[in-house]
């Protein structure tokens, strides 16, 4: 990413560069959003829904999301299923092997927080965000394939806020725009969506 990073910084420094950078950002975010190749890290029941999502009835390919088993070709790692402490180093290793603009979707309660295996187990990692930076969490046990596709659309909105030049993300509305958004009840959200990097 070195080449791209200094391109971004160079554009930022040159006087007229800001305009080019924002338009370049727009194109890049659009293209990254619409061709998110997923790395299916399916371990347990959520893997079944992950497979169903890319097959005939809930076609993932329509959003430009192809399941690529090889971490080198994937952009987003979908962690679907329970991650045990024997499995964690392998997941961490595969995450590191992915090329840089990469994101993580934690699918299913087991990936989000250990879910039904939160209490009384000795070998379950309580949530993938203990060792991976997670971008979108999906609740459900297992979530429907449409929830996964909804998460991909959510991830697109989040990517729209990112930029090539590091540390220059536009503020994005990170609170869910759903009509009766569970968080609509006047409760201050965790942060106002300034979106760090």
């Amino acid at each position, binding site marked *: *990413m070195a*080449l*791209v990073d200094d391109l971004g910084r160079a554009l930022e420094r040159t006087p007229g560069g800001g305009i080019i950078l924002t338009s370049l950002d727009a*194109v*890049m975010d*659009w*293209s*990254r959003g*619409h*061709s998110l190749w997923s790395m299916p890290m399916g371990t347990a029941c959520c893997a079944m829904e992950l497979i169903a999502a890319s*097959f*005939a*009835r809930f*076609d993932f*390919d*329509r*959003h*430009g999301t*192809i399941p690529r*088993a*090889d971490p*080198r*070709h994937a*952009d987003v790692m979908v962690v679907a299923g329970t991650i045990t402490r024997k499995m964690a180093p392998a997941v961490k290793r595969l995450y590191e*092997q992915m*090329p*840089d*603009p990469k994101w993580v979707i934690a699918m299913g309660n087991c990936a989000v927080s250990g879910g039904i295996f939160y209490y009384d187990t000795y070998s379950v990692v309580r949530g993938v965000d203990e060792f991976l930076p997670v971008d979108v969490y999906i609740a459900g046990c297992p979530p429907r394939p449409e929830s996964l596709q909804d998460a991909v659309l959510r991830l697109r909105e989040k990517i729209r806020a990112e930029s*090539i030049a590091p540390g220059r993300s536009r503020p994005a509305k990170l609170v869910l725009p759903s009509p009766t958004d569970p968080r609509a009840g006047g409760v201050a959200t965790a942060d106002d969506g300034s979106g760090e990097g």
Partner: protein
Amino acid sequence: MSLLWGLLWGLAAVMLIAGGAIIGVWWERKVAGRVQMRYGPQQIGPAGSLQMIADVPKLLFKEDIVPEGADEPLFRYAPLAVFAPAAMSLAVVPFAAGWAPFDSTVGALFFLAVPSISVIGILLSAWASHNTFAALGGLRAAAQMVSYEVPRSLSVLSVIVLAGTLRPTDVMAAWEWWWIPLTFVGFLVFLISSIAEMNRGPFDIPEAESELVAGYFADYSGIRWAVFMMGEYGALIATSLFGAAFFFGGHRLLPGVGGIVAMVVVACAIITVVMWVKWTFPRLRADQLMAFCWKVLTPVALVQLLVAGVVAAWL
């Protein structure tokens, strides 16, 4: 002057293959979708046709990972070694009456010989990426190389025997209607062996999706992996054009300008059949491929050559 002409043609070939690859990948995902009762890309452009417009810039800006322990220069330029033969083999294809970009007397021989260089590219990438799975994939490609080259050459030979010359334009000139039924079996052998040569369809053993995960290009990310894809689609385009020319008469099908259009249409039909075959059949094992080529394709190609020889002699 010929150097300038060569450079110009090289650039044209790369642009043609890049455009072909973009349309090819989209058409492949559409055919795969339809075969599997789903739609394939739909969101960008009419019926998702501009999906690759979204994929290419993303791949361009992907981090270009060179795995530690890999052989640096070899790793960077191995994809070119796979892509170049496809572009070069496009040079000898007889597009119009008496005109081929590089009309050499041994055009057909050139077309048969050049694609096998891509196997060297595969071996280079397999060795350079310091990855057990890649090494396995590369060795498999090398092992099965000879088995499909022989029937491929024999099947084209039967047309050359009929035409009596190696120069593609002369072959086109000497082309007759009744050659189609005569050499149709040869065409089938040619098609099957070129699928094996392109490592596609039932013979994608070097990069078997379910065993070696991604075979020889396991460690290529971003644009280097795209160059491999362009290499594959380039070979596909070149082979189908050549097949259309030699076995279906190419531009001789319709008089005048219509000829080129007819040739392209037949080539597209061949591409679609190749994709259809890929998404229907399971994958052969490496040794089964070699057995199939030696024990089935080569005898059939020889019989076809015998028939073509007898007819040529009787003429």
